[in-house]
């Protein structure tokens, strides 16, 4: 690389062609991404059709071929099906909540004249700073049955007389798990909606006002249609990331009580990196997850490029 940054080339010396320069500048990125992103994806496909448990792992490459065996085992495993179902429920609750709350809060902090809105605008990014696992542990304390912060507050305010076991009972555990996750990831949705709101030309609202349209009418006929591309972007991004929730599950419920909060990435992690160390099965379940999200990714790319052109 050193010879690129040498002082002005002597007259007549040809500069590198644009193509060569573009290629050379991308070599390091391509190598790193090839090693960490592309190769592992193919290797995971190979592992998912191989029989790899702790014994095979010790003996090393190559692993015995297992065909569709892991996938067959996967879809007969009630725990995997439950994990998949929980993942869908979790993602649906999270995404619906974030779309509604994100838009409402973006509109709220967009109020220029209220000084409290300016305070909110300063604080809205705060959850983004919190490490997910720290967030998880904080909510372990908040939700704790006997000593937790939430029960303390609700008791002092006078809303409850007896402490509630938020994460310990099957009926509420999965929904209790959505709140910490929504809290941590909401800034992203708010931010994107807020950016989109600022991109709407104010003349549109002025024109509507002259026509005598109310605030509600303006929201339905100007704000919402103008935000439609952004709504789709947030929907796709948030859905695919909510599918991968891991840290909060690890911290707060570890899949419990019983197995009511097992989700897909927790299933993959536990099957692969805890006894019985079934790497093959774990890879198969990771691949199912990757395929579901891959479909969302295709929609995302199409959406962005339709918008550009």
């Amino acid at each position, binding site marked *: 690389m050193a010879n*690129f*940054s040498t002082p002005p080339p002597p007259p007549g010396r040809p*500069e590198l062609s644009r193509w060569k*320069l*573009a290629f050379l*500048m*991308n070599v390091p*990125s391509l190598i*790193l*991404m090839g090693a960490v*992103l592309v*190769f*592992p*994806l193919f*290797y*995971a496909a190979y592992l998912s059709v191989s029989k790899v448990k702790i014994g095979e792992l010790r003996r090393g490459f190559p692993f015995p071929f297992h065909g569709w065996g892991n996938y067959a085992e996967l879809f007969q495993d009630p725990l995997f099906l439950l994990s998949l179902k929980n993942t869908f429920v979790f993602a649906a609750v999270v995404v619906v909540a974030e779309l509604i709350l994100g838009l409402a*809060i973006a509109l*709220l902090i967009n*109020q220029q004249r209220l000084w409290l809105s300016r*305070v*909110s605008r300063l604080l*809205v*990014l*705060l*959850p983004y*700073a*919190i*490490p*997910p696992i*720290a967030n998880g542990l*904080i909510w372990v*304390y908040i939700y704790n049955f*006997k*000593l937790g*912060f939430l029960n*303390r507050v609700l008791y*002092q305010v006078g809303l409850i007389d007896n402490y509630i076991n938020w994460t310990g009972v099957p009926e509420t555990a999965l929904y209790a798990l959505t709140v910490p996750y929504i*809290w941590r990831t909401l800034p*992203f949705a708010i*931010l*994107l909606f807020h950016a989109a709101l600022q991109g709407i030309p104010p003349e549109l609202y002025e024109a509507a006002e002259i026509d005598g349209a109310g605030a509600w009418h303006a929201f339905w006929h100007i704000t919402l249609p103008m935000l439609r591309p952004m709504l789709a*972007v947030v929907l796709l991004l948030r859905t695919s990331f909510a*599918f*991968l929730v*891991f*840290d909060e599950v690890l*911290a707060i419920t*570890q899949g419990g009580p019983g197995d009511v909060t097992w989700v897909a990435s927790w299933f*993959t*992690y536990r099957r692969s*990196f805890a006894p019985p160390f079934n790497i093959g099965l774990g890879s198969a379940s*990771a691949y199912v*997850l990757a395929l579901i999200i*891959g479909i*969302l*990714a*295709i929609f*995302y790319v199409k959406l*962005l*490029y339709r918008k550009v052109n």
Partner: protein
Amino acid sequence: MRSTRTKSAFLNLANLLLILFLLFPIVAVVQGSLMSEKTVHVDIHAVIPPEVTLENFVLVLTQGKYRGEVNTSITSTYMPDNIKTFYRAFLNSLVIALSVTLLTLVLGSFSAYTIVRLRFRWTFWFLQSNLVARFVPLISLMIPLFVVGRSLGLINSLTGVILAEAGFLLPYAILILAPYFQSLPNELEDAACVDGCTRFGAFIRVILPLSAPGLTACGVIMFIVSWHELLIPLVLNAQVDYMTLPMVLSSLVGDTNILFNVMMALALLSLIPTLVMVLLLQKYVVHGLASGALKG
């Protein structure tokens, strides 16, 4: 007039609720970390702790050596091992986050520049692959990375974690940086080239310094994501020497002996670096997050 007043009263109330919601976990972690052991156990209804103490922080920051007067049961019976390696973990996290930031900034700016300025069909494909790469689930990469890293001897090292995190975050860095380079006028390099600079020289001396806000935005986000990362080090590293702060936190999970006051002190200490960053560099974080999600 009345309706305007009702409206702003309603909006102020909504703002108050929002602020309460945003601060709730922060208040919880601060309250928890200031409690004495006795408050945790005996005064189970107290929101404002009757006994306020900083000894939980002292306990963590002296790596368990100074146990204080209010933390009696930890003195006599139990002390999580990983608290004894707090500084080690902090340092590991810092080394990893800084290396990942540097690596993604250098490689990311090279790639982002070529994508927006030296346009070819393949650079366009590369950009689209980066959009798709953002969607690759980390968990599906971790199994092969573990299996391969194991045979290459990259397990239980900081290098393995740095490379894995940098590679995983690189597409994101490129997506954040590309719009910044695109926003600079094309004439800049031409002017530099007239003065006898090579194109690469113009990139280094003209474009990069002018993109400082974009590089800051990208760097802050890379540092934050790396500081928060749990799964990659958790899978690749197991030895105490290579633990990161999130790993120390995760090792407290399900430990029924640890008390909330110590746990919250540790959680609070681990979130302070990125909290300070976000508060100081808020403008950059906002720009980076928005451009990384949209353009390309």
